[in-house]
């Protein structure tokens, strides 16, 4: 063990090491008392590169995008053909923030693309780029 286990001096008033008969609240059922530090890869992606999100992923090239963002067969009624090129991180960011539709894209199709991007998960093409747009800071 080392100095980190000892009571810190200074600013940490009302520290946690049980001072006897301190009152402890178990909290409201909905409150959160555990936050786990996650890797800041998303931050990295945003800060060191210019990224892109293929819509849809390359292995589904040619598929249409339904208004809810799901990938459907080409020609499906009510769905939109994919954009002619991958969306850049900047374009996706603008769309996610209800900004202007990027040049060359149909506004309704763009909304379907946004929904597709929202459904991206780790392991899918474009996810690191999407994650980098989601950073709170």
């Amino acid at each position: 063990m080392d100095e980190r286990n000892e009571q810190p001096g200074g600013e940490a008033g009302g520290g946690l090491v049980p001072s006897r008969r301190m009152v402890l609240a178990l909290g409201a059922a909905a409150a959160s008392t555990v936050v786990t530090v996650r890797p800041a890869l998303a931050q990295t992606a945003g800060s060191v590169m210019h990224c892109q999100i293929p819509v849809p992923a390359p292995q589904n090239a040619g598929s249409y995008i339904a208004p809810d963002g799901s990938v459907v067969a080409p020609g499906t009624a009510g769905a939109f053909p994919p954009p002619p090129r991958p969306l850049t991180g900047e374009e996706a960011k603008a769309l996610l923030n209800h900004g202007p539709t990027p040049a060359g894209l149909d506004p309704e199709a763009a909304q379907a693309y946004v929904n597709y991007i929202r459904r991206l998960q780790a392991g899918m093409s474009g996810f690191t780029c999407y994650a980098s747009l989601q950073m709170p800071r």
Partner: protein
Amino acid sequence: MTAAARELTGLLTDPARAGEVADWTALVSAARAESLAGTLAWRLAGVPLPREVERLMEDARRASETVRVEALWEAEMARRALAPLGVPVVLLKGTAYAAAGLPAAEGRSIGDLDILVPARSLPEVERALLAAGWEWVKEDAYDDLYYRRWMHELPPLIHRARDRMIDVHHTILPLTARPKPDAEAMIADSAALGNGLRALAPADMVVHASAHLIADGDLAGGLRNLWDIDRLLRHFAGADAGFWAELQARAGHHRLWRAVHRAARLANDLYATPIPESWRIWDSADPLFRARMLARDGWGRQTARGLRFGFYVRSHLLRMPPLMLARHLLAKARR
């Protein structure tokens, strides 16, 4: 084949030759590209090295230790999720080597968590994982159907908080591949690890590693997978003189003798793995496999484009009969 990849295999085999390395930067780039940087660093531990090289190897050893802890933790979280079911959960590949403390785990990169469970338990395993925070990583319904009907594993799942993938296998090769390994026997003969999880029996571990390398993929990352086989063979055969006969019999039982035999020959060729004299035959395709595995240059780039494409096509042919392959490619093309 390239000098950098050959130098890498040579140095892994005989770390004492570190003094002969002329271009460490090229060697490290090739090792990183082949996911062998941590392995190389552990092999070179204790060998006199130039100071800057030694520091880089220390960094790589530290990084591989983090990888090991994270992989074992992911296995533990899967164990906690699946423990109430009471079904045997067999760890596969890197996580299994780490959990069993095998030499193959030293410095090894470990990505996804791979587990093998009885086919009949799949629905409850799937439910338990979904309840414990894992989610589907699916691009669309065709992929999902394809996995469920033809593959040897569930569609991949990812944990929503930890961002780690799990592959849940019910056998070790795609259902469409010609060899039909006896997954039930593999599970029945697996050994308890002491942490509530299981690992394949030694011979089955080699059979699986060989099937994965030779009979399934396109040999991308082949040097790392072949290094696993070298370490496993040396370890198991060194402890048990009867291992070779057992391995041959077991490989035959799973219809994977050809893959095991080829993997052993390649390991002998590239990593000087001691194998029985009678196993050392000449095979006209071995040089192609060898060249494919060594297709990595000192900038970390893949070389031998045509050869790689050939192995890519082969990997698809191995997985499916031609008619099914045609249907699969057509469905992909239509989308």
